[in-house]
């Protein structure tokens, strides 16, 4: 079976999520990658280490014009005869995967968490109901598009190398114009973070966030918060996780002074490991936690930071 994987490089590099997607493709069949941008040929060929046999790169398109990217991916699928297209379920993937599916008359699996089961048709397990359940979705069309969530399957290094070819196609006009970009500064953006330290109203005020940031720094984690904290302006809105904020699935989520309301859990309960710190032993969050500390965040967070620093120093 022929598979096309679409991934995006940033600052000349590919993320772990990109390696996961290429590995995922390689488990299904012979994998070609389609990408764009200015990553070096060495970096592009490096995708072979995760199972790509060929990497097609377009140097003219920008990442904003989902109509053009859709045409690019569709043209690459036609050129390689791919029946299955794999993408990452991130902001860009969410914008273009449904378009590509509609253009290819293909069923779309949104939020895949496992490899396809082909014992009876083509069935893929996905997240539904904000991570509160899974659905096994069968694709009825001959072609299919799969959007893979990050951290679902680990990347597998194969030691291979891929050939690199420039790929051009008729992409139509660019219709979206970027007028201004504002950078949030350094740090891993929340949706891609593997380690997240989060705090809620239990922290009492924005002036107390130093202990949260210290722990995040010790771990190399990204900070997040509950919704009320963003609503009252203690923290920026891009940190708000939950049903109406960012949904995350990091390896580790540490929550201090957050009660664990169902709408908060909806955005974080796909985290691999959850640590909850709360003064109230009855806080609902403990039911969703792997590890709990019943205690005052003002006491526990600095101690945890110290223990992490000690652990890191001993490594």
């Amino acid at each position, binding site marked *: 079976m022929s598979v096309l994987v679409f991934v995006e490089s940033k600052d000349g590099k590919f993320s772990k999520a990109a390696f996961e997607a290429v590995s995922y493709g390689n488990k299904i069949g012979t994998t070609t990658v389609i990408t764009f941008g200015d990553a070096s040929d060495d970096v592009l060929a490096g995708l072979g280490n995760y199972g790509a046999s060929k990497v097609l790169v377009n140097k003219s398109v920008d990442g*904003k*014009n*989902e*109509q053009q990217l859709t045409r690019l991916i569709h043209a690459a699928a036609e050129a390689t005869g791919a029946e299955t297209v794999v993408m990452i379920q*991130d*902001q860009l993937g*969410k914008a273009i*995967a*449904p*378009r590509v599916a*509609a253009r290819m008359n*293909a*069923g*779309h699996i*949104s*939020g895949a968490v496992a490899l396809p089961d082909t014992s009876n048709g083509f069935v893929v*397990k996905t*997240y*539904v*109901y*904000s991570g509160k*359940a*899974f*659905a*096994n*979705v*069968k694709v*009825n069309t001959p072609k299919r598009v799969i959007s893979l969530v990050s951290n679902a399957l680990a990347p597998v290094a194969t030691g291979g190398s891929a050939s690199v070819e420039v790929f051009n196609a008729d992409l139509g006009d660019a*219709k*979206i*114009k*970027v007028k201004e*970009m*504002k*950078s*949030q500064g350094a740090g891993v953006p929340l949706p891609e973070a593997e*380690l997240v330290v989060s705090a809620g109203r239990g922290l009492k005020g924005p002036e107390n966030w130093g202990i949260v940031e210290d722990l995040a720094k010790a*771990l190399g984690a990204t900070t997040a918060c509950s919704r009320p904290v963003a609503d009252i302006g203690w923290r920026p*809105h*891009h940190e708000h996780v939950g*049903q*109406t904020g960012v949904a995350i699935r990091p*390896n*580790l989520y540490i929550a201090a002074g957050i009660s664990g309301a169902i709408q908060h859990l*909806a955005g974080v309960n796909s985290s691999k*490991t959850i*640590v909850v710190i709360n003064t109230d032993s009855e806080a609902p969050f*403990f*039911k969703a936690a*792997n*590890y*709990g*500390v*019943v205690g*005052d965040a003002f006491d*526990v967070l600095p*101690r*945890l930071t110290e*223990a992490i620093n000690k*652990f890191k120093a001993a490594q």
Partner: protein
Amino acid sequence: MKLLVCISKAPDTTSKIAFTDGNTKFDENGVQYIVNPYDEWYALVRALELVEANGGSVTTITVGTAADEPTIRKALAIGANDAVRIDAPATDPYFVAKQIAEYAKDKGFDVILTGKETIDFNGAQVSGMIAEILDLPFVSLAQKMEVAGNTATIERDVPGGSEIIEVATPFVLSAAKGMAEQRIPNMRGIMAARTKPLTVVPAVSVENATTVVSYELPPAKSECKYFTADQMDELVAALHNEAKAI
């Protein structure tokens, strides 16, 4: 300005998620349906604000059965001028997108607004599919939108920051938090909604591209392990050795 807002229903955010019929159907027992929050709070309200400022009309469209009419009336009570219901159960995103695109294709809407995603299926699929079928630009996850003449200026967060983009009408937009403030319908709105036009349109024939064969609940979390504030080294060791999280 002529705006179309896609309205879907979703189980209330506190609903218990369970399945029946050998895990093949969502258990609707005791479930309260609401208008999908992104569709109502952000897409619909922003559409109303734009029309209040610039003139025009807001039509809502829903692919669903008669059981969806209470949620459609709620959208009318908030202020939409009229509503369309495509008469078919919404079983597959491609099916839904085809129905909406088929209805919208020759009506001259300036913007087709959707929510960011439905909170039950979280597919974020329908919006992009409508755009592709109609060959229109699609701006996802918009947090602010202004329209002047036929140019829209849109702000949104992107990984690592935010951006301001420009796009000409017509286009498809999915609305995220920030676009508008929730509006609570008043008594007059609720009364008026009863007599506003709700047109039922038959569905066009489209094969479902996907089918849900079964549902599963996540495996029960293992019991929470507790540590005291004095046992932070032990917690860190557990995170390293047992959870392999650090």
